[in-house]
């Protein structure tokens, strides 16, 4: 019998409505008890005095690049980066090669993860075959093999009728549909947010409207079909407002936001530095503000990183040739503390929800709580430890982060999966 006690931390478990100093005991990989002065006999004891002890963080949007792009990331390296970011569960998007659009690929990922990943991996399957937006993928079979949602992330489902059928079909299997909202005719090969900065730099713009029109379409389709619908990496203020409106009307729709979309805006991007190039792009400061507001008022239900590793050779090119995406796992908590908690926009309890019960609820994962019998996944973090992000020491195989050298106040201290420490400072 293995026993671990996390002692004297401030335990925050939103689902149990718990916020106070306590010990957390785990036995054989499950939460055994939360309370004061728990028995430490024979236990591995971690002194968490002055630290926050929370249910394991869940990142519902990552790219692990395996199979197919192992030079950029692997299930193993991505999982290590996740652990170092305080995440105990991650959901890889299906844009691998081959695309995760059938049960064989899903099973491959699940099997590799069970052997090589130090955190839990819950794959997301494709909506359409090859993510080409035309023919529905083997959604039911993938569900049996372990997917927790469907998405053609990286590509939007442009055809409204295909999206409608996907929503209807997925609802029958209890799966949420996640869309990367971007009208490709409007974004038309753009490289960054369309605005004053793109005009100044002579870069082709991606207007906010390219996101807004697809969010609007999808919300109407969600109403038509009754499906559980989720907007990936929401970035534009009108999109946030539309999701808020739909939720007020009682539709089962949700959305997530990445740390970079509330932490940065287009004026802050270093000119022609591809570490600032991602989709959706860094938008106007009023959009970043709207995303933060959405997180505070509950419109945005989860913080997800969209961790998107690309090797240096791909990011060392003309800006317009560089692929979209940046690393995110190791800096997410630090950025959320800096931009949401420290300025007083949300409480620490709310932050924990956005990383735990939020994504767990959206994906119906039986995780995100420290209730007795729950999986022994725990994230221990500090609110004030000062540290600086060194991307060259990242566990990821890639180095594409705009936050290299950024000083943080507060961040992950230890990560426990199934009762075992998978990372600690």
């Amino acid at each position, binding site marked *: 019998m293995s026993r671990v006690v996390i002692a004297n931390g401030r335990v925050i478990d939103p689902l149990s409505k718990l916020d106070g100093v306590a010990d957390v005991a785990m036995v054989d990989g499950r939460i055994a008890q939360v309370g004061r002065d728990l028995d430490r006999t024979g236990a591995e004891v971690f002194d968490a005095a002055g630290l926050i002890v929370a249910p394991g963080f869940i990142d519902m949007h990552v790219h692990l690049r395996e199979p197919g792009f192992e030079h950029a990331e692997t299930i193993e390296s991505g999982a290590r980066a996740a652990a170092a970011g305080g995440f105990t569960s991650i959901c890889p998007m299906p844009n691998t090669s081959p695309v995760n659009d059938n049960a064989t690929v899903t099973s491959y990922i699940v099997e590799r993860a069970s052997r090589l990943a130090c955190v839990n991996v819950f794959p997301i399957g494709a909506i359409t075959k090859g993510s080409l937006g035309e023919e529905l993928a083997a959604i039911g079979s993938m569900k049996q093999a372990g997917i927790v949602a469907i998405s053609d992330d990286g590509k939007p489902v442009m055809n409204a009728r295909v999206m409608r059928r996907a929503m209807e079909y997925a609802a029958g299997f209890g799966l949420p549909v996640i869309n990367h909202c971007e009208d490709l005719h409007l974004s038309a090969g753009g490289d960054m947010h369309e605005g004053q900065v793109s*005009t100044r*730099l*002579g*870069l082709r713009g991606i207007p906010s409207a390219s996101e807004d029109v697809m969010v609007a379409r999808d919300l109407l389709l969600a109403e038509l079909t009754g499906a559980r619908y989720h907007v990936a990496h929401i970035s534009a203020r009108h999109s946030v407002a539309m999701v808020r409106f739909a939720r007020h009307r009682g539709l089962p729709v949700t959305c997530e936001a990445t740390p970079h979309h509330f932490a940065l805006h287009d004026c802050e991007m270093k000119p022609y530095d591809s570490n600032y190039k991602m989709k959706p792009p860094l938008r106007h400061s009023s959009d970043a503000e709207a995303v933060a507001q959405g997180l505070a008022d509950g419109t945005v239900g989860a913080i997800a990183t969209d961790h998107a590793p690309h090797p240096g050779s791909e990011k060392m*090119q003309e*800006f317009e040739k560089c692929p979209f995406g940046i690393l995110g796992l190791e800096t997410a908590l630090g950025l959320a503390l800096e931009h949401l908690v420290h300025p007083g926009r949300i409480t620490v309890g709310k932050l924990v929800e956005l990383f735990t019960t939020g994504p767990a609820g959206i994906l119906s994962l039986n995780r995100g709580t420290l209730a007795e019998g729950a999986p022994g996944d725990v994230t221990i973090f500090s609110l004030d430890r000062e540290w600086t992000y060194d991307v060259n020491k990242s566990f990821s195989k890639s180095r594409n982060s705009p936050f290299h050298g950024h000083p943080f106040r507060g961040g992950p201290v230890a990560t426990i999966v199934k009762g075992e420490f998978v990372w600690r400072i």
Partner: protein
Amino acid sequence: MTGGLLGIEDLDRAEIQAVLDRARDFQAVQRASFSRLDVLKGKMVVNLFFEASTRTRTSFEIAARRLGADAISITAQASSVEKGESLVDTLNTLAAMHPHAIIMRHSASGAPHFLARYLPTPIINAGDGTHEHPTQALLDARTILDHLPSLEGLRVAIIGDIAHSRVARSNLYLLSKFGAGIVLCGPAPLLPQEMGRLAPGVTLTTQLAEAIRDADVIMMLRVQLERMHEAAYPGSEYFKFYGLRLEHLKLAKPNVIVMHPGPINRGREIASEVADSQRSVILNQVENGIAVRMAVLERVLTNGAVA
């Protein structure tokens, strides 16, 4: 300019003025055939053109040779770029040959800025995508000053595909720094409102007549079919609404000058009669291109310390 010349936006007025003044010195040299200075003797410049351009490349080549430098021109088609070599590798290879400066034209905005971060060699931007074309703005300013006493208070109309024009951006920055008023004009989809906020003194209009009224300078832009990613306007009626014709000149100041960065499309953005009229200074621009590029090369290659 010791680090090169990437754009007008970052230059201060004094530096621009110094180039314009020095270019005037070179105008005489440039007009005398076969004259050659040895200011840059022993220096080597590489003209690296990733995008077709005859006049800018030739102009830089002549400028370099007139100053006694060795100039080598490489075009993308002739280089290993065609074989799939990355921009970084191409430039590293060239840098290993130790040129004193690289003159670069590229279809991607920011390509020279990207390289300047990694290469010690000074880079002169000869046009990057839809971003900047600094020597064009300098030669345009030199040309205006050959005909008008000062840039301050001038009304300059820039007409055409503003959205995709690096010439418009560089000119807008330069003219604004010297207190000129700039009117940008073109079909609305090619006239982003944000252009008006790039520098002080810029206004926008979709009406050609309004742009030209009382103008001291009319700059026509080439209709850049190669830069159009989509049909943003009906091409069939472009000339009707945005082509410069003789009757338009009556709206401008009597001594208005008409400019064009070339190559011109007669009958598409400018009527032949205007291009060939007394008001046209298009060929002066070409001449000044060499003088201005001599001044830029001299400043970049001699740390600005001009004898």
